[in-house]
């Protein structure tokens, strides 16, 4: 099953009843999957909207009405959705936004890339806000979609699943899990018509600067909770390593391939793979810095996550980088050669 379809199926199994989307490659299979699949769900809503802006605002409406709602897109479309994502965050409404990244900037191309890291993790709209999950396989994409909907409801916050064109398009076996019992979340904010209760109001406009500041601190406290509780990462062959690769999503798959090859040649290289890009797994990087000095960041961009790695290291260690933007996907062999060069240079440097 393709990553795009798997994300769609997982979303439906996670209780998503509303999907709103606008065509854009390389994520069209997800929209097409939902067009068929949502029709089988009781109360299911699928709308191909007139624009990405309309789609995200339909998500906002559906979420305010109490439904689990999702939209998906890629780079240029995600830029358009940022307005709505910001409102979702301000209104404290849950929603899941999937971005299957492609080459940018501008129209760019439709090849896999990781060009939207900063947009996703820094809150691409106005304001700061959102948890970003980065799956590295079709199976993990399906699993993380469940996590995404639950976290969105837990924190009443929009949530981004950040894949790329390769993850969306590639076919892998996948096993779907259906939660035995759907978790219940308090829904006292949902608009249903004020039957037998006072009217409810969902808004982000707070003219009173004192009120707006308090709202910002309230959101900030929520983001702090997320930072405390929601960090996810994977390590691979890190225990004895003297160089740590850092990569997420499909780049991490390539990195694993490169590491296996490097290990055969006797190079002790391990991997830290952030699964949440925000909150970023700082602690494991800081702990690893006690064991080794060389960090090698690999991204399918000119270097965006590298900023978070450097922030985590606070000037410690040495940060190497290799990036390929524009939809170019290096092979594990290519990456292993470059990592090996840095590895040996680093060793050399330490001897002299």
């Amino acid at each position: 099953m393709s990553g795009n379809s798997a994300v769609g199926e997982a979303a439906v199994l996670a209780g998503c009843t509303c999907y709103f989307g606008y065509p854009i490659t390389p994520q069209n299979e997800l929209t097409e999957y939902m067009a068929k699949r949502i029709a089988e769900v009781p109360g299911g809503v699928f709308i191909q909207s007139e624009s990405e802006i309309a789609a995200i605002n339909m998500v906002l409406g559906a979420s305010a009405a109490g439904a689990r709602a999702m939209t998906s897109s890629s780079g240029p479309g995600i830029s358009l959705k940022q307005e709505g994502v910001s409102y979702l965050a301000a209104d404290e409404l849950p929603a899941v936004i999937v971005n299957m990244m492609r080459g940018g900037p501008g129209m760019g191309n439709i090849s896999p890339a990781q060009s939207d890291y900063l947009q996703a993790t820094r809150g691409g709209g106005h304001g700061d806000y959102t948890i970003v999950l980065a799956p590295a396989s079709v199976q993990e994409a399906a699993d993380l979609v469940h996590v995404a909907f639950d976290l969105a409801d837990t924190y009443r916050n929009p949530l981004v699943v950040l894949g790329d064109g390769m993850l969306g398009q590639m076919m892998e076996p996948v096993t779907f899990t259906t939660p035995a019992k759907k978790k219940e979340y308090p829904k006292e904010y949902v608009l249903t018509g004020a039957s037998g209760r006072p009217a409810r109001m969902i808004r982000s406009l707070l003219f009173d600067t004192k009120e707006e500041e308090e709202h910002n601190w309230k959101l900030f406290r929520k983001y702090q909770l997320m930072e405390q509780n929601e960090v996810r990462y994977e390590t691979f062959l890190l225990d004895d390593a003297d160089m740590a690769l850092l990569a997420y999503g499909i780049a991490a798959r390539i990195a694993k391939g490169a590491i296996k090859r490097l290990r055969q040649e006797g190079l002790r290289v391990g991997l830290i793979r952030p699964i949440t890009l925000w909150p970023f797994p700082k602690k494991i990087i800081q702990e690893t810095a006690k064991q080794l000095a060389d960090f090698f960041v690999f991204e399918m961009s000119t270097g965006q996550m590298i900023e978070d790695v450097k922030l985590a290291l606070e000037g410690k260690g040495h940060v190497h980088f290799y990036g390929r933007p524009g939809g170019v996907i290096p092979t594990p062999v290519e990456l292993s050669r470059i990592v090996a060069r840095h590895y040996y240079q680093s060793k050399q440097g330490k001897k002299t």
Partner: protein
Amino acid sequence: MKTVYARPKCMKEAHFHYCPGCGHGVITRLIAEVVDEMELRDKTICVAPAGCGMLVYNYFDIDTIESAHGRGAAVGTGIKRVRPENLVFSYQGDGDLAAIGTAEGFHAANRGELISIIFVNNGVYGMTGGQMAPTTMLDQVTTTSPAGRDSVIQGHPVKICEVYATLDGTSYLERVAVNKPAAIIKTKKAIAKAFRHQQQKTGFSLVEILSPCPTNWKMSPLDACKWVDDVMTKVFPLGLIKETKKC
């Protein structure tokens, strides 16, 4: 003693922020009266816009959500599709619906979404201080058309009702005004009719209301009311534009 005039039940005890002579206060109250009379308070969800109408949520005692500027029809679509049993209406101004929200309104209408739009046309951006709107009259002076709107440079007033009338998804479109008592009574009837169309699932409904903005037109309230008749209705003729089924 007989009560002849009272605050509608679905309005909160709040003072309007609207300027003296503004039509929004009348329209806000008319909607509340209709919701009361049709006994719809328990079912109604209002989508508030960005613009002068934004603060309706401070006045309505009904469930309300604020939308981003222009996105009311999309937000309303999301709500209505999840809760088809509710009455969903969005309250939008001319900048909101006829400029930044053109796509959202047009396509909700074309899909025949079972929502109603209360479209307040006063020919200017009011909240931001009287800039030119898509519905500004030719030769009308605003802060961003200081020499008067020139069709060669700034285009022509947009006629939302007439445009929407070409869409098969729309079932009820009427243009009314709130500049004099008889017109206000007609406006109230039109709002009720739009809600009935929604309840009877005939299609998308919209009431365009010509509304005076004395502050930004730089007129006295009385002159503004007269200007609606003398100037606005010449470009935006009042009356039923489209009704596919009597409701």
